[in-house]
């Protein structure tokens, strides 16, 4: 009665093609450059022709980027080896940094170039750059894919280059490069290579250096942190297009720039490691680093539960005194930033002295050094800065729960209340602080009324109560 689906589909496709061609003629658009001819024939010659085309791609590519076409049973890839360079790295010092790789394991710097920015199974890593140390020398190699069909060979070569105990060093590799490679291995039904650990330098840079960088791109890190300029470079967004053009029969020449770009990226990973290790790798050296770096480092250590080191960083930062540059910037930031439109770049710095004091007090509490914590909160409160109210509340908490001194706690609350009133008077209310105070005062008054007066024991060791009461009310 009606024609079979396949037949009708063929006819609809022919219609669509005609329609498209008509529009194309109307617009008289030139053919996109280097469009590879589509092979419509289904003859035996197709296979040979396609295979030949693949081989030709590989040869052209190897020639253009001055690499070597390595091919075997699972296909072929283009390998580019570079002479090693001197780039010493102190692994002991690196190992002490937060998330720093342990000294004994091999490090592999890794960066990929891909056919698109979307992660997903249709995006291919067509260039993988690797860098490893042999003694003080840094050795780089790049693996380049000449055709979609050859991917298994490249994946095998990459797997062979990563020893199972090695640590990967990447820039945003946890979120992008590595998951993408894992997807590639799964696509070709291979197990992704094992590795001992992964040091992603993007979060590291964000935590420690971001406060003095325009943004966190690797290029910015090179210029503003490492003080170097790689010169003319291809823009990241152009890279997929250059490669796809080449696959469609276009020129391989733009890929030379892409290979250089990837080479520089991998090299910068190594430089960044060396920089971090030499400036922050031990307690003495980091005292000369900017206060913001030290504060960031303290946070990084604290995140990992390495509280002693975090405390050391904070002590260092407080000793170094206020960082003029940062304070100056934060004031401009405050004046130029609209409250409703927080901009990353003009965000007020949080590394002022009071923030450091508060961080330090919290760390002391976590370490169970409650007497010192109380002193630190009191310092903060007496300083009278914008965190003084918080300081008094924390003082009140310690007095109430540790020292069993509700009267003292109430007095601290009074001090906080006066601050809150003053703030309200000048029109900047602190609603959370006020609400907290209302609750706290009510409870303290109740306690004072109910309990028999008891003298607080002045030097009672507070470590015995580590049951989290303080943490719970914090």
């Amino acid at each position, binding site marked *: 009665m009606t024609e079979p689906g396949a037949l009708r589909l063929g006819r609809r*496709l022919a219609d669509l093609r005609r329609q498209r061609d008509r529009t194309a003629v109307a617009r008289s658009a030139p053919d996109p450059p280097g469009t590879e001819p589509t*092979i419509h024939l289904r003859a035996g010659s*197709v296979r040979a022709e396609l*295979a030949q085309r*693949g081989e030709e791609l590989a040869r052209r590519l190897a020639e253009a980027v001055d690499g070597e076409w390595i091919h075997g049973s699972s296909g072929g890839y283009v390998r580019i080896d570079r002479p090693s360079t001197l780039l010493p790295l102190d692994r002991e010092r690196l190992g002490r940094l937060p998330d720093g790789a342990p000294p004994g394991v091999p490090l592999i710097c890794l960066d990929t170039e891909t056919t698109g920015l979307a992660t997903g199974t*249709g995006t291919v890593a067509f260039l993988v750059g690797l860098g490893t140390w042999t003694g003080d020398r840094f050795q780089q190699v790049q693996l380049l894919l000449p055709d979609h069909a*050859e991917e298994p060979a490249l994946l095998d070569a990459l797997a062979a280059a990563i020893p199972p105990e090695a640590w990967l060093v990447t820039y945003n590799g946890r979120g992008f490069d590595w*998951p993408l490679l*894992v997807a590639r291995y799964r696509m070709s039904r291979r197990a992704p290579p094992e590795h001992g650990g992964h040091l992603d330098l993007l979060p590291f840079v964000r935590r420690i250096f971001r406060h003095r960088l325009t943004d966190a791109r690797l290029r910015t890190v090179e210029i503003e942190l490492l003080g170097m300029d790689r010169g003319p470079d291809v823009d990241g967004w152009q890279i997929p297009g250059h490669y796809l053009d080449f*696959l469609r029969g276009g020129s391989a020449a733009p890929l030379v720039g892409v290979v250089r770009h990837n080479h520089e990226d991998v090299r910068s990973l190594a430089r960044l490691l060396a920089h971090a290790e030499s400036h922050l790798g031990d307690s003495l050296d980091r005292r000369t680093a900017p206060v913001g770096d030290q504060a960031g480092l303290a946070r990084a250590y604290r995140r990992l539960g390495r509280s002693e080191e975090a405390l050391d960083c904070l002590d260092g930062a407080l000793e170094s005194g206020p960082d003029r540059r940062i304070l100056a910037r934060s004031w401009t930031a405050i004046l130029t930033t609209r409250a409703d439109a927080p901009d990353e770049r003009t965000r007020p710095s949080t590394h002022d002295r009071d923030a450091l004091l508060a961080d330090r007090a919290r760390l002391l509490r976590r370490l169970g050094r409650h007497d010192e914590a109380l002193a630190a909160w009191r310092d903060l409160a007496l300083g009278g800065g914008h965190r003084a109210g918080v300081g008094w509340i924390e003082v009140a908490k310690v007095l109430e729960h540790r020292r069993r001194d509700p009267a003292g706690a109430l007095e601290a609350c009074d001090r906080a209340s006066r601050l809150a009133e003053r703030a309200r008077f000048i029109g900047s209310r602190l609603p959370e602080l006020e609400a907290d105070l209302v609750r706290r005062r009510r409870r303290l008054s109740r306690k004072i009324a109910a309990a028999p007066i008891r003298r607080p024991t002045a030097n009672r060791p507070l470590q015995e109560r580590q049951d989290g009461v303080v943490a719970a009310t914090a």
Partner: protein
Amino acid sequence: MRRYAPASVESVLDGILAEPSFAGGVVHHEVIPPRPALTAPLPDWLDPRIQRGLTSRGITELYVHQAAAIEAVRASQDVVVVTPTASGKTLCYALPTLQALADDPAARALFLFPTKALGQDQVAEFAELARAAGLSVSAATYDGDTPAPVRSAIRTAGQVVVTNPDMLHAAILPHHTKWFQLFEQLRVIVIDELHTYRGVFGSHVANVLRRLLRLCAHYGSHPIIVCCSATIGNPAELAATLTGRPATLVDRNGAPSSQRHVLLVEPPLLDPATGARGSALGVADRWALPFLRAGRQTIVFGRSRTAVEILLTGLREALREGAGPRSRIRGYRGGYLPTERRAIERGLRDGEVLGVVSTNALELGVDIGRLDVAILAGYPGSVAATWQQLGRAGRRQGVSVGVLVASASPVDRYVVGHPEYLLDGAPEEARLDPDNLHVLLAHLKAATFELPFEPGERFGPSSADDLLAFLAEEGHVRQAGDERWYWSSENFPASEVSLRTAAQENVVIIDTTRDRPRVIGEVDLFSAQTLVHEDAIYLHESIQFHVDRLDWDERKAYVRRVDVDHYTQADRAVTLKPLDVFAEAARTGGRRVHGEVMIASLATIYKKLKFVTNENIGWGRIHLPEIELQTTAAWLVVGPETADVRPGGTWRRDELDIALLGAGRAIQAVASVLLMVDPRDLGLVTQVRSPHHEAPTIYLYEAVPGGVGLSERLYERTDELLDGAAGLIAGCACEGGCPMCTGPRLEPDVDAKALALRLLRALGADRTVGPRVTAGGPE
């Protein structure tokens, strides 16, 4: 004086029917006798833990349809279960899934629900069953609201993943390597609310399933597909078209039901000359009041948010006059906060809430227990949805009442005029076309992105090579040295396709009500002309939006939330040209044809129409460029011997014009009922002298690029369409044509009804097929 004494449903109903003002509007009253349960024992192969879990929940045997479904799955057959509301469909797919997990905890299952809310309710029910069985099963919803850390846990460890087709399409399939545990071990795929996968959406979902099954094959799994559908005419065919595989049909319902009354009601005729009738909303409220006053739990369904507001206000006003239980009547619709909704649902279950007025938000899934009375203010658009709404009433014991009040549209009139359609089986069919070229190509791109194509590999009806070669010419894919086709573009193809629209070029609708504009939907260009022109009132999830600006070049419509008492309806001037004929046959008085057409459409003016009364309160011009649409159509060519318009011939030319339009409108209404589509999705063009056929012609075209298979069925069901149209017109109580049959009367002295009927009879229509509607009018 009014009385507020508790009374039984039956006595209230008797009281109502004793009053002539009520009884006069009842077109049909059906009493469906109670039915005992048909059961089968729990099969002995069912894991003992699951059996114990069922027993602990009071389930000692299964209904026959549940037993048949799980036996079919056990025999490795795909199955489609036709389940009336509240017949225990969850067990049909939950038991096979639990059994698979009991056999092998590494097994995985994927549940697809058309909407997010539905999935969340079902996952809770499934989890309870698993808990009762003492099986530790991790079942989780994976949708747009799932937080990122939970997502990765679901990917690796979720044994039952509950999601919707949009999420599967855009978030799961393109990232299948992250889901390899799911794909490698997938045993069961559940597709609930199968009947909603029709039209454009269904065509897309069919292709999403092609992609899903292709990936399963890649990972070496062979899942069984369990579909659950409301009662429609072609469940097995729908399942087969959607999944591409044959399915065993299970449609012998074993669930018991109590006695229920179903009443079809027409509002009173106010003016025979224009055919004007009373408001469906007013009548619905009148029916609801006696039940509410008697303390019977009642749900009233309105078709839009505004309708819900009007119904709710009406009920509360009436109850206030007589100090009735006003505060126990609640509204329920999209836009309410989840906590409000949960509170109302709970109130309905425990009886605290007596009456609820709702949009179709309460039609599916959501558990509100069983009520006494369901009143539908207007036909909800399909027989399946009608039953889902009526099914809200019906307790295990006692009597329940369902009332369908027709609103002023030919579709509603047609349905209440054909009680047998509603009661004796469903004539309506869900249609989709997975091979719509636009849809197919979009998904072929996504499929190539997901996995390269082998040479000669099939996608849909045939080998994909030709289609891939086409895509290669456009630069999306390439054939590599190993002859496989690879994705070779920087784009992410899944993000370019919305499952809810046909073409890729869509107008995005942006809500600017709040400070941060947000996208609330998209419509294809063709629909955009009439739906989101400037100053249109656009309805989204029953909420009204005013279109402030339409940036045609940027394909963006900026809208703002409003609360107004009218809607807009746009007219388009359409020229139609047949391109190709797929099938053609002679019939009485002419020929019927199915083929491809080119539509040139220009939106001209819009009218502002008042809700409820449809009163015209203003109009405006639309300034948009003409657009072309290539689509499929079915058409009727009137033979020269039937309609001779030459001087002295059988027809006057102007009369034939009116007859074609009147008959066409009635056919359009009947077609939208039979094929479960919005009448707007079927365009109508009539030509007294078609340039192509040189004869009078009625065209019905699909308002979707390439069509979704509707016109092919219209062609095949021409007889039913003509008979139905003739019955609709003949049965209408108006004098000479009205908006409920032949369309608004343009010339008062012309009897459009008689003309249209004359034409339909000449084309072989037999209006004696199907009962006539007798509402006291002429004829």
